[in-house]
């Protein structure tokens, strides 16, 4: 097994850009990642491309714009975990010696779909019953309140932290801080969630170049960041009662990543996690073992997960503030952690960051707690 490194990163500001061609939009971040790595295109062995709401064969469409075709291209769909799934596969291919260098990217342009919640499959039972993602996450939040005695306004504190971080990140979709009062004044979406408890829809693209130790040395890659471990799981199909407050698939994935990398929760300096809706962030503090069940709000209020704290969560602003263009999010998180570990993050830099986690889930499917979960651990 060879070590595998992030050798180059590409990320553009998330937002709403419906007038831009998706291929052009994504090609820019792939080119950015390639240039940053300094690795010539003819040495790229394989590519993984993700787009949940874009056209078929997005890999070919985008990579054709950067002269990177003829190699094996895998188009990887795994809901919000899509591009992180691509990273997981690319990591395995390089680690096992079947490739030296891989490109992974994710893109989605949700503005082209109009506004409102992302569409779910009409073949899915719950979706045919009118369920949309805010409704699913709101039921998690109501149950979490029931079990741990929280009030709806407690979730607003998650949004305030996310927006405060995003305000420092020039690539975030939302760059304006908000107050508790502003969150509480936004319109009700699905009780207890108001609009500002929900991640925005938008457009985004992110890319990474992964390389073996040998390739990193051969091309003199500057500041390579090692991938310590990757884990990908699907949720378990369970038509019966399951907990909506303790994510089994996320808990298991974090635990396995810690074991594989030989670290524990106390070693994690920063994490980019799947805060699609405000309560999710609190639930994942518990899944990461940053605190015990029911203690997440206290941990948030202690400042431990804010910039300057001991486990900074979502320094980028997270899905709530950086934005959540579905297939781009996993790769965007990995770009964010990589740049943090390279001490390149400017106003939202986490001091002395050495070990970081990227975590995405995804898939609103009847009978599944989550469709997929990918966790990637990066280290200096």
């Amino acid at each position, binding site marked *: 097994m060879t070590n595998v490194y992030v050798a180059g990163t590409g990320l553009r500001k998330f937002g709403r850009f419906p007038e831009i061609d998706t291929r052009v939009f994504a090609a820019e971040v792939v080119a950015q990642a390639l240039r940053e790595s300094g690795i010539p295109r003819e040495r790229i062995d394989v590519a993984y491309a993700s787009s949940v709401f874009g056209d078929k064969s997005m890999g070919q469409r985008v990579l054709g714009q950067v002269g990177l075709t003829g190699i094996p291209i895998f188009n990887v769909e795994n809901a919000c975990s899509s591009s992180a799934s691509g990273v997981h596969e690319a990591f395995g291919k390089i680690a096992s010696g079947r490739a030296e260098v891989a490109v992974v990217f994710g893109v989605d342009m949700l503005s082209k779909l109009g506004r409102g919640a992302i569409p779910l499959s*009409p073949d899915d*039972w*719950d979706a*045919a*019953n*009118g*369920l*949309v993602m805010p*409704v699913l996450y*709101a*039921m*998690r*939040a*109501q*149950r979490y309140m*029931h079990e741990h005695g929280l009030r709806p306004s407690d979730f607003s504190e998650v949004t305030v932290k996310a927006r405060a971080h995003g305000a420092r990140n020039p690539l975030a979709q939302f760059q304006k801080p908000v107050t508790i009062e502003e969150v509480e004044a936004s319109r*009700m979406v*699905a*009780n*207890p*969630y108001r609009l500002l408890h929900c991640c925005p829809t938008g457009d985004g693209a992110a890319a990474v170049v992964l390389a073996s130790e040998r390739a990193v040395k051969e091309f003199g890659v500057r500041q390579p960041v090692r991938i310590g471990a990757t884990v990908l799981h699907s949720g378990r*199909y369970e*038509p*019966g*009662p*399951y907990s*909506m407050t303790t994510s089994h698939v996320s808990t298991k994935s974090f635990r396995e990543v810690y074991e594989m990398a030989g670290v524990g929760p106390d070693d994690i300096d920063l994490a980019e996690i799947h805060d699609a809706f405000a309560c999710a962030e609190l639930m994942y503090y518990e899944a990461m073992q940053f605190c015990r069940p029911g203690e997440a709000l206290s941990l948030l209020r202690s400042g431990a997960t804010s910039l300057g704290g001991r486990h900074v969560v979502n320094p980028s602003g997270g899905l709530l503030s950086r934005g959540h263009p579905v297939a781009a999010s996993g790769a965007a998180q990995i770009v964010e952690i990589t740049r943090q570990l390279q001490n390149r993050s400017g106003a939202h830099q986490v001091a002395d960051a050495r070990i970081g986690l990227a975590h995405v889930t995804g898939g609103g499917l*009847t*009978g599944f707690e989550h469709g997929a979960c990918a966790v990637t651990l990066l280290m200096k």
Partner: protein
Amino acid sequence: MTSLTSTGHVHPAGPGLYACSLCVDCGYRNFPPTALCPGCLSERVRREQLSARGTLYSWTTNRVGEADAFVGYVDLPEGLRVFARILLAADTSQPQCGMAVRLKEAEAVIGKPHFTFEAAAAGSEA
């Protein structure tokens, strides 16, 4: 009595809408019902009417037609969970996790909850 109606023309569940599948070989119950058992891959599967009484696991609000309505996940004694519209007793303002509910209506209209439950006093007759 439980009122059960089905338009029967829109969803694979079709007639017998408020039903699960039960595997004759291993006893696995699946909802929505399937002809293939996920537990043991048997095709010896039959339909079984679901219990009319359940417990509200969690709830929220969602647009149903022109207005917001309460919706939630109802856990049934069969060990299954169904998404449903929730109607409250006249003297309550919002649902409670863990409250007893009973089926009021089942009707398949795409985009709306197919099942409607109403609050039920714990221990009362369905």
